[in-house]
């Protein structure tokens, strides 16, 4: 069964700094997603990564996918307070019943 692990689970950082969130998954998959969730809200889709070497950027966030290493990263550049949220990666399980499996989430707090 597919397992998805994120690290770190908690991240507190200062505005202006850079940091990376890592997402590892245990079995072959060809699709990986990053979501943002604000407290009490639903999931907001950030990135859809479909192939090895895929890189996508939106503002201060950049996501990449290495399917051979079964690793995705979400890089935050020059963090600002508005990016404080919980970030989830999720992977499509393609063996057996196709379903979306989430990582544990990374709670990001950006301090002024």
């Amino acid at each position, binding site marked *: 069964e597919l397992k998805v692990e994120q690290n770190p689970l908690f991240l507190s950082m200062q505005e202006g700094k850079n940091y990376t969130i890592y997402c590892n998954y245990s079995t072959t998959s060809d*699709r990986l997603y990053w979501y943002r969730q604000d407290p009490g809200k639903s999931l907001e889709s950030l990135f859809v990564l479909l192939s090895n070497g895929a890189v996508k950027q939106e503002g201060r966030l950049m996501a990449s996918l290495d399917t051979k290493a079964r690793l995705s990263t979400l890089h935050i550049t020059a963090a600002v307070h508005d990016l404080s949220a919980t970030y989830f990666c999720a992977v499509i399980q393609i063996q057996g019943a196709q379903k*979306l499996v989430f990582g544990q989430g990374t709670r990001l707090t950006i301090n002024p």
Partner: protein
Amino acid sequence: DAMVIQNPRYQVTQFGKPVTLSCSQTLNHNVMYWYQQKSSQAPKLLFHYYDKDFNNEADTPDNFQSRRPNTSFCFLDIRSPGLGDAAMYLCATSRAGEVTGELFFGEGSRLTVL
């Protein structure tokens, strides 16, 4: 415009009093999902419909049931809510066979059990 609509957004019920949450979609997607998300946890899949075919996760309690009367609507029934069922319930849809396989989530229904 909202494409996946959940009602109610907030539901308060008493211990053991049945609850129904609804989800409607305007995307004409053939797959609909129900996820449960407890505080500070990741969303957990309860079940999904592929067209009319119901697929239950092995660890979903019997207390949770679902109905999909047509393509656009799906309901989550909690027969006898316990305190441990307090959570955000997320409905999502997707189109099988689409390249991205992306799920579209509703705003969620937050359930409080007293």
